[in-house]
């Protein structure tokens, strides 16, 4: 009973009547959120139309593509299945980027969509720079 009273008084004094702790609470949260969202990094991906032939992907593009982390994603229909593979080798010549994948023959062939991991960005950039879209 006594303890409860004391807690009530303490609560009224520091949490209700004085704005300090309230501001600290808000401030700490925003600080932690800013730090957390700039520490968490996500892959930045670029999307291209491409052809797949066995274990080689050919992308027609104007310049050499930089491969970050040596990883690509590709799919025919994104909602059915997205494949993810490591890159064994990549070369650019005459406006065509050729990417050789690890792991031999793939189940798909023909025209596909490729997403190349081109870098990293923070969660903060993703939310405020790109409205959350990948």
């Amino acid at each position: 009973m006594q303890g409860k009273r004391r807690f009530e008084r303490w609560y009224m004094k520091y949490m209700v009547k004085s704005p300090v702790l309230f501001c600290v609470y808000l401030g700490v949260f925003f600080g932690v959120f800013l730090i957390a969202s700039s520490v968490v990094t996500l892959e930045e991906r670029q999307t291209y139309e491409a052809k797949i032939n066995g274990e080689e992907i050919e992308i027609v593009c104007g310049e050499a593509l930089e491969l970050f982390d040596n990883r690509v994603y590709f799919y025919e229909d994104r909602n059915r299945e997205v494949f993810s593979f490591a890159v064994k080798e990549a070369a650019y010549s005459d406006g065509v980027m050729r990417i050789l994948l690890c792991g031999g023959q793939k189940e798909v062939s023909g025209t596909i969509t490729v997403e190349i991991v081109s870098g990293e960005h923070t969660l903060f950039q993703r939310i405020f720079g790109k409205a959350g879209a990948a």
Partner: protein
Amino acid sequence: MKETGNRLNYWSAIGFLKRYMRGYRKHFMMFYAGWLADSLLAVLLPVLFGIMIDEAVYYRNLHSFGAVALVFLLCILFSGGLYFLLYAQHGYLMNMFVFSIRRDVFHHLQKCEAGYMANASTGEILVLLQDYPVQCMHFIVRNMIHLYNNVLMAILYGAYLCAVDWHIGLTALLSAFFSVLINMKCRKKIGSLGQEEREAYGSYAGWMYEVITALRDIRMLRGEGKIERTFEKKQKELFRIGAAAGISSLTAQNMIALSNLVIRLVIYGLAAYMAACGKMTLGTLTVIFSFYTKLSDKIAYISQNFLDAQGRVSYIQRIHDFLRAPTEPERTERLEIREGSISFSGVSFGYESGEPLLHRITLTIPAGKHMALVGKSGCGKTTLARLLVGFYRPQEGMIAIDGQRLDACALDSVREEIGYVQQDVLVFDGSIRQNLLMGNRHAAEEQLIRAYEEAGLAPFIESLPEGLDTIIGSKGMGLSGGQKQRLAIARIYLKNPKILIFDEATSALDNETENAIHQAWRKVLTGKTALVIAHRQSSVMLCDRCIILENGQVAETGIPARMAVESERFRTLFAMK
């Protein structure tokens, strides 16, 4: 109550409330900042959720998923704590802010001119003091803070939808616009019915309050039947308005729900089509669904909020008007009584709502004399007494005490110097001691005892086991009419003013009590100027002179003993054969 001054709109209502918010500015700012953070979180959380879905479903990137999920969790935890703090703030502000308005209203109530107060019903004043200040707080929380944050959120949601895809954004905004139109149209109808319902309920509550306080009189008057019929009529009226409001609110709600559903289906169809074509990820789709739902909710909220604001502004208006109602004038000159002669010269008066009551009354009560004032019921005797204590101001002529003009004196000094026993004595809830101390707060125990002995209350009080500390009033023991009058006399005795007004109760008393009261009168009256409004011949006989009031004029004056023999008017008035 009549309306005074300008009509408030949304902004001037805020201007009016600002005065009361000033003392709690820091708290209101905290409160707003808290709700703002809450609104921003409401926008942020679906975005985070969308990112989590994309990372998990498409890229099976569990590391990123986990990291974003942690941030998500952090936000949720924060928002839980935030609500706790916000509700504590809300409670605090509610108490303090509402209290400061209520205090102002109450303070004003004390000083308000009697003429203004007489036109207001008790129920009306009760809601003015109890309910409307709370509505002011609701206005600030709902019609300011939540309104602004919701507008902000609606803008953010709309901007997000446009950023994801302008087709969807545009469709969403257009549809939101239409749904607002439909909502407004329907809600306006509901709003006006709701207003009618509130007003009907308000008047019902006021009436009920007055009936309950007068229950005993109603029973005495055998008026139960009539009151019951009125009660039924009012109930039926309430029911009718309630039903009409209910039905139109139901149809309107169905209309709104239907139109919202159609629009929502269009948006969802469009988004789903884009997702199926692979132009949009599942994560974005979830965000769009969630944002569109929220956007239309916000818009509905904002339009509803606008209508509510109108209603609340009218409550604020009432407080605003009331605080501007005329108060008793503040004057600095004090009434100083040396001998206590009273003179009315050419005094005319009529209540605002009624016809002129007193016409050019001229009379003098010499210092130390006792003047009886008699006349038919309703001829304005009590009114004359009220003029003398400054509850009302004469419309013509002037009243002077010892040659000092009454309308130049501070009213508290007038009331300090004049003792007034009203026709119906007011007994406060509390002990007899507290009731007596109303006459003189600093009276010592011996003085109290002397006072009640002189007033003839000694046998009664001494027979009570708790004596002076017996609780009387509505919560305690009831007092008889004669006891109440003697209580009032004891109070006057303690107050010991130079001038006395006795407004004798009309209710009949047995001979013994009447004698006892007359005894008490004699004791307090000695050496004082007195105006005795008498309903009994025996009371008139205690006085030096007598005035008969008729048709708002002094019809006759004379010495009571002689009038009882000679005056036809006097004999008719007291039914003397």
